[in-house]
């Protein structure tokens, strides 16, 4: 048996032959036979004997062999075959078991036919010292003695087996009474320990989760910051680009306009000044009127401009191309005042009428070829061929500019008996003031006068107070003799400034003046109010700012000459006061400044502040300056 000798390196191997075989008897065979079933092939080293034995046996089973060997084979072969089959199952199962060492689902225990491999359990698991107060067997004994008392007690057969030593019994669980709570205590303790472990596991998992989430948050905030910085960069870039775009637009417009210059007979007097867009600088100068320009209005910064002058003309200009669109004819007298809406223009004139025009009907004048010549302001010359672009014959005056009055005229409002000196038009509602010492409110649809407000009557009540202030009507002379110098209304509230230097507040529902603001000592030439303040300018060379609620003067500014016209918004007040420049008062900084640009004294000036442009007119030129 060299095989058996050499193959097993067990320490006790050499001694096996010395041992007596007397213990080997048939009764023991049954107990020992099960030991023939093979361990896993991985444990071949100490078990080669059993391996070889079974290997020898299986091929021999069909053969008839005499003697004891026969009985051995025939009796035990089926068992050994079963063992062999089991062995294969074992090895296969063990191989799968080994692949997932630690996870051993409890519910599979019924389907498996193997017992776990010690390698799996012992590997990588630490076996700490047992700290349980009660060992498992003690718990078992406690339970067991309880179950024994529950069931009928039967005598247990305890076989005497070699190597048996009496077991020492510990604990104080003799009586039945103690066992039950002890058992429960053990069970409870178990549960608590398990719960503890479970909670610890959960806790560690949650902590890991929290850490992960914190990391993600940090990443996301970093991303957000980078995106925000990107946005700011884009913002600045966008601002730069819009500036460039406006610049280029201007240049293009300029090109176009210069192109047109050659076509119009009415050439500009050379001054196509285009300055940079700094505030307070002149962008454009439009020329065309022969006489002093009395009033003007425009609807939007690059829209349409209407001007009226002493030369009896009312002109429309296109502010995008800076060219004249045409002359609105129709009024029989000079136009004193006007106001423009998006599509409507309302003009009041010395001929006691108010006319309404639709300016959206105006288009650019047809291109005409002309031989341009330099002209004087009052003279006109024309050598032209009018190229007909459209089938309609275009009426034109000697200057080549079309008369567009018929195209645009909408309505005429008659009723005043004196020249209309000022008007205000807002939201389809119109109020006009006239030298017949009345103010009238008109319905724009029907063209009828709704309300007439008699100022004389209102004035009579305040003459006494005026004398006290020191107003003497003969000291001042007005060039234009406006009885009602200025008016403005909003909803049902109307403010009027009259020759007596009094600002009256009217209610348009009743037509009565409910308030009078005294302070100016000269006729009022211009006024404006908003929710908080009233600003008025007068021939007495001053501008007064009034608080609308209390009616008291907040501020007064003195100038060198009489204030001709003004306009204000929350940030500034601009006015003209007889000098060559425009006075600008910054309301937030409380500073006065000037805008230069006109070459002649401003006698009449009207401005409308609409961001960002500001057309000013004086004498013959209309200047558009950037504010």
């Amino acid at each position, binding site marked *: 048996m060299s095989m058996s000798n050499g193959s097993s390196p067990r320490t006790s191997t050499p001694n096996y032959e010395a041992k007596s075989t007397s213990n080997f008897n048939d009764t023991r065979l049954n107990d020992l036979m099960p030991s023939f079933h093979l361990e896993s092939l991985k444990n071949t080293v100490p078990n080669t004997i059993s391996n070889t034995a079974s290997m020898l046996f299986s091929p021999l089973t069909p053969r008839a062999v005499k003697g004891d060997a026969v009985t051995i084979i025939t009796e035990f072969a089926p068992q050994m075959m079963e063992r062999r089959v089991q062995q294969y199952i074992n090895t296969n199962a063990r191989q799968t078991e080994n692949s997932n060492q630690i996870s051993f689902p409890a519910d599979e225990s019924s389907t498996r036919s193997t017992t776990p491999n010690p390698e799996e359990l012992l590997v990588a698991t630490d076996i700490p010292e047992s700290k349980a107060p009660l060992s498992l067997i003690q718990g078992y004994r406690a339970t067991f003695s309880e179950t024994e008392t529950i069931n009928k007690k039967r005598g247990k057969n*305890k076989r005497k087996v070699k190597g048996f030593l009496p077991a020492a019994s510990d604990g104080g669980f003799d009586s039945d009474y103690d066992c039950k709570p002890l058992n429960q205590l053990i069970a409870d303790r178990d549960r608590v320990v398990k719960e503890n472990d479970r909670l610890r596991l959960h806790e560690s998992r949650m902590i890991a989760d929290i850490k992960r989430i914190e990391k993600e948050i940090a990443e996301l905030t970093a991303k957000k910051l980078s995106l925000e910085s990107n946005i700011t960069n884009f913002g600045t870039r966008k601002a730069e680009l819009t500036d460039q775009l406006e610049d280029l637009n201007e240049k293009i417009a300029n090109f176009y306009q210069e192109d047109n210059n050659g076509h119009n007979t009415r050439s500009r007097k050379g001054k196509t000044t285009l300055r940079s867009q700094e505030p307070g600088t002149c962008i454009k100068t439009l020329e065309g009127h022969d006489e002093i320009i009395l009033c003007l209005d425009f609807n939007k910064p690059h829209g349409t401009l209407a001007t009226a002058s002493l030369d009896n003309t009312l002109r429309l200009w296109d502010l995008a191309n800076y060219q004249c669109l045409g002359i609105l004819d129709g009024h029989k007298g000079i136009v004193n005042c006007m106001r423009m809406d998006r599509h409507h223009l309302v003009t009041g004139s010395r001929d006691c009428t108010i006319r309404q025009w639709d300016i959206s009907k105006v288009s650019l004048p047809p291109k005409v070829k002309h031989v341009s010549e330099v002209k004087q302001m009052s003279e006109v010359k024309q050598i032209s061929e009018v190229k007909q672009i459209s089938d309609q014959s275009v009426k034109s005056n000697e200057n080549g500019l079309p008369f567009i009055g018929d195209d645009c005229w909408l309505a005429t409002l008659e009723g005043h008996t004196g020249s209309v000196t000022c008007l205000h038009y807002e939201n389809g509602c119109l109020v006009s003031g006239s030298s017949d010492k009345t103010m009238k409110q008109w319905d724009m649809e029907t063209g009828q006068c709704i309300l007439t407000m008699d100022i004389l009557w209102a004035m009579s009540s305040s003459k006494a107070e005026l004398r006290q202030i020191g107003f003497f009507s003969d000291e001042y002379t007005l060039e234009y003799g406006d009885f009602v110098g200025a008016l403005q209304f909003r909803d049902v509230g109307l403010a009027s400034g009259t020759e007596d230097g009094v600002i009256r507040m009217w209610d348009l529902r009743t037509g009565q003046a409910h308030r009078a603001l005294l302070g100016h000592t000269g006729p009022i030439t211009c006024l404006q109010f908003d929710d908080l303040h009233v600003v008025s300018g007068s021939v007495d060379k001053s501008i007064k700012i009034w608080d609308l609620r209390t009616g008291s003067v907040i501020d007064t500014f003195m100038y060198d000459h009489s204030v001709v016209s003004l306009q204000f918004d929350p940030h500034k007040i601009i006015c003209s006061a007889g000098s060559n420049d425009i006075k600008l008062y910054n309301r937030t900084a409380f500073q006065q400044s000037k805008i230069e640009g006109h070459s002649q004294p401003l006698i009449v000036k009207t401005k409308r502040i609409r961001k960002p442009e500001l057309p000013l007119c004086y004498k013959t030129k209309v200047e558009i300056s950037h504010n």
Partner: protein
Amino acid sequence: MSLTDLPYAADAESPLTIEELSVLRRQFEKEVKEDDVTTQTKFNYAWGLIKSRRKNEQQLGVRLLAEIFRESPERRRECLYYLALGHFKLGEYTHARDYNDQLLQREPNNLQAQSLKKLIEDKLNREGLMGAMIMSGVVGAIAIGGLYIASLFKDKRK
């Protein structure tokens, strides 16, 4: 604490009655249904199974013990002993020896472990002896068979 009151191997040879075992089983299954199996119940049932004479029950018992081993770190040392015992009863002496050796590593003075070790070694030696006996029997059988065939041939020739 060292394990001083482990049951000796003889304890594992005394099976429970059917009623007793069924009590333990019922307790175990009840807890399984509630999904709240305590270690003690599992052990009780496992130990009861190991003590029985039927092999499949012994195997189940050993499996349950393995689960306890995995789940409760504090019970692992005890489980080593019981696993050794279980495998011993099943006849897997090498496994039994592995577990027992692990226990003896940690508690060399444990009486029960030492006695179990002796038992295991006895069995292993016997196994070897059995193998040797069978081998010799097989060789003898082959020899006899060969001689018989030879004799047949001899007769034929003559």
